[in-house]
């Protein structure tokens, strides 16, 4: 970068023969410039024009650079940027893949709000997110703090904690589906029978289905958060602990006044990331229950999927994109508000 810039400026006052004068404005501006005092200005103008010239651009390797960017531009253009824009457009259209799309204004959004299942899905997603926070947010933190104090087995413990994360998600859900067998000889029910608890219906009952889904999701995801916390814990300066001890802090005191405040930044981030992730839960309801029993586990994402792909009347693409745009907008607003609020606490 720096080398090309200096070259361009030093080259500028060179022989004008190489400079292909731009048609039109070029000569006129040269003539109008006063002799002597304005030569610097005109030289700079020339240099600027030269940098924007297509031929010199190619000579300096502009085309080669573009060639290297081509895979990114094609792949992101076709499979990321265009679909994002299309999604916004489609949410205001009626599309049935047969006739040309028709602009319908806010109809798709209204249709989503009028759908009673939407409100059920909204409540279920909120319930899932709340339960996931209750189970899933404190456990990785406690586990990571304890694991960080272990001297010898730390590596082994990290591997054990991370193992559930590397099992393919589909396999892990299907495996837990077998664990959740509602019969008295199901895996979990057998374990419960050891301590005298009667068999539970797990995913077959509307009341226990959602907690069962959250339990599996927590098991599958906790390892990743533990690893993040472990990394953050190693960056807490030992001096702070030394200083706390000089002030007579107990072990709890050190955790409360040093460890947790030092992790504050990462704790804020994992919290919002978890909320964003749970708002988009799909795999568990899709594979465990398909949304049942009686819509008790239908989530927003499952509803989007159903609108678009399992609709007997043909894909309601407009409604599906309208709902996904609303979800994205909600998460964006939530994140912005969240970071506004927490930045005040993180900075002090």
């Amino acid at each position, binding site marked *: 970068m720096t080398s090309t810039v200096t070259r361009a400026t030093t080259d500028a006052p060179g022989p004008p023969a190489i400079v292909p004068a731009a048609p039109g404005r070029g000569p006129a501006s040269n003539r109008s410039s006063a002799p002597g005092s304005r030569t610097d200005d005109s030289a700079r103008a020339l240099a600027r024009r030269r940098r924007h010239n297509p031929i010199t651009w190619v000579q300096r*390797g502009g085309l080669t650079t573009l060639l290297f960017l081509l895979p990114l531009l094609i792949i992101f253009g076709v499979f990321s940027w265009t679909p994002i824009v299309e999604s916004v457009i489609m949410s205001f259209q009626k599309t049935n893949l047969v006739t040309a799309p028709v602009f319908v204004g806010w109809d798709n959004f209204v249709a989503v709000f009028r759908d009673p299942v939407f409100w059920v899905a909204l409540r279920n997603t909120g319930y899932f997110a709340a339960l996931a926070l209750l189970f899933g947010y404190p456990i990785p933190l406690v586990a990571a703090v304890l694991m960080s104090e272990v001297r010898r087995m730390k590596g082994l*413990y990290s591997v054990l904690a991370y*193992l559930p994360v590397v099992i393919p998600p589909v396999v892990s859900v299907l495996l837990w589906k077998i664990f959740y067998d509602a019969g008295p000889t*199901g895996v979990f029910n057998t374990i419960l029978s050891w301590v005298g608890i009667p068999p539970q219906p797990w995913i077959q009952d509307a009341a226990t289905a959602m907690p069962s889904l959250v339990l599996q999701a927590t098991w599958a995801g906790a390892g990743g958060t533990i690893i993040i916390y472990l990394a953050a814990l190693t*960056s807490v300066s030992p001096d702070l602990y030394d200083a706390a001890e000089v002030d007579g802090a107990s072990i709890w005191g050190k955790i409360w006044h040093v460890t947790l405040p030092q992790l504050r930044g990462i704790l804020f981030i994992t919290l919002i990331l978890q909320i964003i992730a749970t708002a988009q839960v799909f795999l568990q309801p899709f594979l465990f229950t398909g949304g049942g029993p009686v819509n008790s586990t239908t989530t927003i994402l499952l509803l989007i999927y159903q609108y678009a792909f399992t609709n007997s009347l043909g894909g309601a693409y407009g409604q599906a994109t309208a709902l996904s745009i609303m979800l994205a907008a909600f998460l964006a607003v939530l994140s912005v508000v969240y970071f506004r609020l927490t930045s005040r606490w993180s900075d002090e």
Partner: protein
Amino acid sequence: MTTTAPAEPGVQDTVVTPRRRRSRQVAEEPERGILSAADRRRPQVRVLGTIVNVVLGVCLVVIGLVPLLWLLKSAVTPTQDTLTQPLALFPNGFAFSNLFKAWNDVKIGDFFFNTIWMAAGEWAVQLLVATTAGYALSVLRPKYGKIISGLVLATLFVPAVVLLVPLYLTILHPPLIGHSLINTFWAVWLPAGASAFNVLLVMRFFDALPREVFEAAKTDGAGTFRLFWSVVLPMSKPIIGVVSVFAINAAWADFLWPNLVLTNIGIQPLSVRLPQIQSSTDLGVYLAALTIATLIPVAIFLIFQRTFLRGGGLGGAVKG
């Protein structure tokens, strides 16, 4: 981040000289955590610490390892035993035939190779996009580069579900090609390349490469392509390794998208096929199929542990 460089292992040294560095650190005075050396000498703390350590270890084994071991055990246990006594250890001997039946009769072998083929293609596309883009944006640095990297970064904040429907319609009617890509591997390979995470990861690594090397190579007459192929790529083996491991693992885990675009049984990967065969397959054989689907990701994890566990460190770096 104000900490000194060696204390904060970046992406660069994940694979380069990990072992030496680690052993040196262990030899030195170990970094202290919450507990001080004095704390550790107190008898109360010692007893409590040992108890916590044992409980933690048992919990982690039960949570992390036991479900996998149960899966492995049940894969070679007769179906009747798994149904009636799921937690007994081989009450009536083994049933290794489950594995053969799963591989041959349920055709798990075919789906296994479909998964490998899918993962290989996604890996190749992701690597092509990430390395060429990283080179263009971080080494060649055109003036409009900031705009492009900004647009790539922006996609990171768009939930994937927003793309679902339009992307599906794009695969149904792709531009220029003229026929649907549904039920071809291209339908999963190409969209996988649009991973902003990979591009940003590679860019961050390329930004940290010493620019003097590039200048030297240019002085020696290396052109843009030569610089990419013979200088930059060989220097970026660590980051290529990281991207590769994540790409292959993500491909193996992917479900929603391949489930939508690969409806033909003949080219479906394991993740799509396994839920479909559940009701029609004998439990023992089915568990054997699940086991086969788990082997490769777990093996990759155990081999490349450090990449995975440092991957968390990448997330931790967001903190600075």
